[in-house]
């Protein structure tokens, strides 16, 4: 995976609820929240890895602890169809330049939708136990299933 595209590589990454609790005099006025630290024009034209995310942006937080199973991605069988990208509810499929790069494990909750909608044979995304090492998971990858006649 190319460097810089994971949330972990951004500063401020922390468990939800583990943020610094500040006093009444320094909470934001009107409970306003600012997703970016500095001015940013045309957000839709700026890649996430180039954005000045602020500590208020949930991008800099993690929900990894929600997960009991995780999707493991096998580049070798992937056809970059982007089904997993379009249906991921947690913005956790990292795609750049029409290519699937991998999974953002900081934001993935392990719902399994990506593996379910993956059309390849064998699947390019398979759910494994959270504790499973990626390398071990890849080593166990199933063979192509024969079509039932």
């Amino acid at each position, binding site marked *: 995976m190319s460097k810089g595209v994971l949330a972990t590589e951004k500063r401020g990454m922390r468990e939800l*609820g583990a943020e610094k*609790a*500040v*006093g*009444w*005099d320094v*909470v934001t*006025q*009107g*409970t*306003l*929240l*600012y*997703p*970016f630290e500095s*001015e*940013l*024009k*045309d*957000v839709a034209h700026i890649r996430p890895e180039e954005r000045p995310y602020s500590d*208020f942006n949930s991008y800099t937080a993690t929900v990894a602890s929600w997960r009991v199973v995780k999707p493991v991605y096998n580049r070798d069988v992937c056809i970059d169809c982007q089904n997993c990208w379009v249906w991921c509810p947690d913005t956790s499929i990292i795609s750049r330049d029409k290519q699937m790069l991998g999974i953002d494990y900081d934001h993935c909750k392990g719902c399994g939708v990506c593996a379910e909608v993956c059309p390849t044979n064998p699947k390019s995304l398979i759910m494994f136990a959270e504790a499973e090492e990626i390398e071990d998971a890849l080593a166990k990858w199933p063979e192509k299933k024969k079509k039932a006649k």
Partner: protein
Amino acid sequence: MAEKVELNEIEVWDGNYAVSQALRQAQIDVVAAYPITPSTPIVENYGSYVANGLVDGEFVMVESEHAAMSACVGAAAAGGRVATATSSQGFMLMIEVLYQASGMRVPLVLTVVNRAVASPLNVQGDHGDMYAGRDSGWVQIDAFNAQEAYDLTLCAFKIGEDMRVRLPVMVHQDGFLTSHTAQNVRPLQDEEAYKFVGDYKPYEEMLDFTKAVTYGAQTEENWHFEHKAKQHKALFDSAKVIDEVFAEFKKLTGREYKRVESYMMEDAEVAIVALGSSVETVRYAAEQLREEGIKAGVVAPRCFRPFPFDEIKEALANVKSVAVLDRSAPMGAMGALFNEVSSALYTLENRPFVTNYIYGLGGRDFSIEQAKTILKEQKANADADDITTNIQQFIGVRGPKLGFFETKRS
């Protein structure tokens, strides 16, 4: 660009017309409103300015007061000047959103023409709606006549939009008694008025696309308290800005406003504390009693929120007996103004007797004679060095005398 209007030095306006002229002169960006008696003419007049090219802003006629205030909050968050008007049931329907507006710290002006709250249904003026807004986090300013309604509406924009405040502001006037009574009003010319109010300064606006902002986040037990504490302090701190704006207004017009208006209080032995159009009635009564040798005075909170505790305490420090008048059904408690005034006076070393009069509900007339009776009862308290009446009395209600609590000091 909106056409300017040439105004006479003295216009004959009722309170509603005065407010709508102030709204026109403030060059509001969005007015979102829903009509309700007796504030309807404010919206109608403004509508005629829209139809005749006298204002440039958007005029959004929504389907309820709740939607009116909701649209105002959305508009204010989008970074421009916003105002609306309402009364009574409309105010009650807005209440949910009043809290949301102040919690988000968006400045906007709500001109409230005070009216009783049903049931029973009633269109006349009392302070039931104004009181219902007292915990909503808004600055609440009270006008006692049409001139003040005009002046204070202009001031309201300047107060709420000040970067040190950024809170919504209500300007109250009494339904019909002020809103529909034509009086002499000395307006400012358009340019002067706008110059006083000033250009709107956007702050964290949703239409600045270089700085995305989230309005209306949720806070639970881990953050809510801190935000509410900050908001409360901001409301108390607005007093300083209110004073500054009043001072600037005096410089421009010669008309002086204070957060607490004291009348003949320098040597007063007894006093009335009141709000709204009745203030003028009790001032007249006090003048008459002075001729009879009773040193009477009148104290009127101009600012209902933030409540001017120190100024009330100071104004009443040397009187012997005070009557606090509440024009709202207190429903199982003392009147709200009585409670506020009493708490302000409690720490005085020689605190006066304080009694509570409920009057004028649903627009019932309040006469100079009744005001004099109240002041005379205060004089009797002062002379007896004790409270000679019930602590709370109803004045002007038909039937046997109605009073509550006989607690005496001795």
